[in-house]
């Protein structure tokens, strides 16, 4: 299973994305006691702009392998945005179990700073490169302003508030609790304590969302090595797994307030309350709230009440995002999946340092990704 891992995050990395990628890959392999010559499987992912500002890498998986100097017999390129990291793990395990490879290097990340500098996000890359198409019908869709992750989640938050009476203060609680969790995480960007008032006095980025309810795009990579033989880490197992892909335009879903996490978590069939902690995709506060409902911790519409009445800090009854999540580390290359997965692997191995929980036997992860909220992956890892 997972025999090595590494993560590196910087607000702005001075160097090429390939360079940082190789550094992180080598660190993960070194933890596993492996060298590049041992790697016979590779799994990676890509978003426009995150490799040194380039819209597209031609045959990207090959370029990654080329840069690292490996010749895999198993090669995979996943395309689920923030959910890709979690989806890599069971695929790599299957590849190893079925004899397709012995050591699969799962690697993801890039430079968010390159995209940020262009004044867009990865989901609005058509604004800076006319060769990019977002939908089969951009001609009838991209005339106005503006669909991007911020406005998309703002509409979901606004609708959630209107339909269920969810208050801004309740969403802000998500950011406040996660900040408490982040205080001793060496990756954390923000040292100061957060209050509901501070979240709500930060600028509104798109009604009703505030700046401190959103992730900040940063540079970084995460690597996880899945191996047949594991020498250094605890032997983890996948206790439950489910994925769901809803390709609809969000406006064509029955409602904006449900995510495919509803379906991926049902497929996994694991009660999240049985886990010792949860790592829940946190691109925005509302993202966490929606998943709390969809994975079954609260009834639909009651996520706001849930975060008010439940202590989700790492001292509480149901710890969520125990390292503070990507709201506090920043979001490497517009994907939070690596942050969630690294934190889960650390907790399960007793390697979370000052923010280690005691006796972690299982971690419930849920990742959301894609354009709008197209993809959800539920993964429960146990030791």
């Amino acid at each position, binding site marked *: 299973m997972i025999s090595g891992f590494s993560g590196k995050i910087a607000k702005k990395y001075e160097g090429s994305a390939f360079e940082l990628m190789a550094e992180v890959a080598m660190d993960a392999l070194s933890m596993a006691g492996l060298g590049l010559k041992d790697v016979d499987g590779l799994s990676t992912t890509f978003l426009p702009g995150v490799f040194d500002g380039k819209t597209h890498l031609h045959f990207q998986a090959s370029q990654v392998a080329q840069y690292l100097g490996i010749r895999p017999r198993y090669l995979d390129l996943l395309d689920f945005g923030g959910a890709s990291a979690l989806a890599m793990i069971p695929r790599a395990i299957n590849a190893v179990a079925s004899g397709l490879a012995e050591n699969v290097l799962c690697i993801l990340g890039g430079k968010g700073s390159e995209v940020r500098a262009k004044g867009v996000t990865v989901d609005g890359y058509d604004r800076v490169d006319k060769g990019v198409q977002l939908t*089969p019908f951009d001609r009838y869709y991209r005339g106005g302003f*503006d669909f991007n992750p911020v406005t998309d989640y703002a*509409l979901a938050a*606004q609708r959630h508030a209107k339909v269920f009476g969810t208050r801004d203060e309740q969403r802000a609680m998500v950011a406040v609790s996660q900040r408490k969790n982040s205080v001793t995480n060496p990756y954390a960007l923000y040292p100061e304590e957060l209050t509901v008032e501070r979240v709500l006095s930060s600028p509104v980025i798109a009604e009703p969302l505030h700046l401190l309810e959103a992730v900040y795009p940063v540079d970084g990579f995460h690597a996880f090595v899945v191996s047949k033989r594991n020498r250094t880490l605890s032997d983890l197992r996948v206790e439950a797994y489910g994925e769901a892909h809803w390709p609809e335009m969000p406006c064509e879903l029955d409602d904006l307030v449900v995510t495919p996490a509803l379906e991926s978590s049902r497929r996994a069939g694991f009660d999240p309350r049985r886990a010792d902690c949860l790592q829940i995709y946190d691109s925005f506060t509302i993202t966490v709230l929606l998943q709390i409902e969809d994975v079954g911790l609260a009834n639909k519409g009651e996520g706001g009440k849930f975060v008010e009445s439940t202590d989700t800090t790492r001292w509480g009854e149901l710890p969520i995002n125990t390292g503070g999540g990507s709201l506090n580390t920043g979001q490497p290359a517009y994907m939070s999946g690596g942050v969630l997965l690294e934190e889960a692997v650390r907790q399960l191995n007793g390697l979370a340092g000052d923010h280690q929980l005691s006796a972690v036997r299982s971690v419930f992860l849920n990742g959301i990704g894609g354009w709008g909220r197209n993809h959800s992956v539920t993964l429960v890892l146990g030791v």
Partner: protein
Amino acid sequence: MRFQEIQEHYDVAFRRGVIPFLSCEECGKSFFYPSTRCRKCGSARLDKRLSAGEGKVFAITRFRAKDFGEVSYGIVQMEEGFRLYCNFEEFGSNLEVDSGVKVGAMGETFQLLARPRTL
């Protein structure tokens, strides 16, 4: 129906400032974002229609865009049963979920614009 035909219908409608849509003759599903197949049942028997433009706000957000100032954006539930993304022209009125709006198309870029129905 060929995509080209649908595109011509859409372009003609937009030039007149009207919202086009497709309605499935098999299952009755209506949708705005064009396809040569019904997204519900897969049928190619689609009727090209024009919307009366009447609808209600389904979701709305407001934000400041660098070059365009205050922007109001969201989703309208149209009376014919489909939803679409558009900008709102609010004239200082405070649109909210379920407010009545009239949706039209504007300009070369086919910008979809909804205005409060009462104005």
